[in-house]
């Protein structure tokens, strides 16, 4: 079960992180119920860490600018039998000269970055096929940076039966 961090929990967590606050002080501020909830209720590290990591990675590319849906065809199997090698084909519509770069992330992998492809007009079309490793069921996120500065995004969920991290 994934718990969404409420504004209250976030405030509590940030307070704890930024300065040493005693438990009694906390109870005085937020009430016994909230403090009890804090002990159990803060979101599991997994979900939080995943969401932050992929968002930060995407932010590095977009600079906070919003990416529109469309233009990207993300071709993935719905279910991956073997997470160590999952075939993927991605294409950005239009002439390759109009695409600067295409980035791929796997939002629940230990690290979200998968690959970045830099096209030139010599590519003709901005289409790539490759094979990737996925640790578990998750979303593949693609962002295309166009030569004119526009950004496009596509997301596709894939179920992974046997994770691909090995060992």
């Amino acid at each position: 079960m994934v718990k969404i961090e409420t504004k209250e929990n976030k405030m509590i967590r940030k307070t704890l992180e930024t300065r040493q606050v005693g438990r009694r002080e906390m109870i005085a501020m937020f009430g016994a119920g909230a403090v009890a909830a804090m002990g159990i209720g803060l979101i599991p590290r997994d979900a939080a860490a995943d969401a932050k990591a992929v968002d930060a990675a995407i932010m590095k590319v977009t600079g906070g600018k919003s990416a529109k849906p469309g233009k990207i065809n993300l071709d993935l199997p719905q279910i991956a039998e073997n997470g160590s090698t999952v075939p993927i084909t991605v294409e950005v519509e239009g002439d390759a000269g109009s695409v600067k770069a295409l980035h791929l992330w796997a939002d629940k992998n230990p690290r979200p970055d998968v690959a970045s492809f830099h096209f030139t007009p010599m590519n003709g079309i901005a289409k790539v096929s490759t094979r990737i490793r996925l640790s578990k069921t998750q979303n593949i996120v693609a962002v295309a940076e166009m030569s004119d500065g526009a950004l496009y995004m596509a997301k596709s969920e894939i179920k992974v039966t046997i994770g691909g991290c090995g060992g």
Partner: protein
Amino acid sequence: MAKTKARVKVPKSVNKGEVFQVKTLISHKMETGQRKNKKTGKIIPRMIINKFVCQYNGKDAFVADWHPAMSANPYMAFYLKVGESGNLDFIWTDDKGNVSKKSAKLNVTG
């Protein structure tokens, strides 16, 4: 690069302006840095090919940055469209800077 074998598939001849597919494959463990040595419990350090470059007549035609999420023995297919005959160079570079290269001649007709 030690122990790597690279293969590329390029059509021998294409028409001028025709979009054609190039397939590349290189044998490489692509060690992610996530695995642990089962005996010692220590993390096996990351060692991957992190960059692929395809050049046509000495000019970059296609560049890819790879991360540990790329599968072992990385396969990658992409497309090209050129106006004259020439030389294709494929260059794989790993984390340590070791390089593997493969070349192919392309004949463009029309």
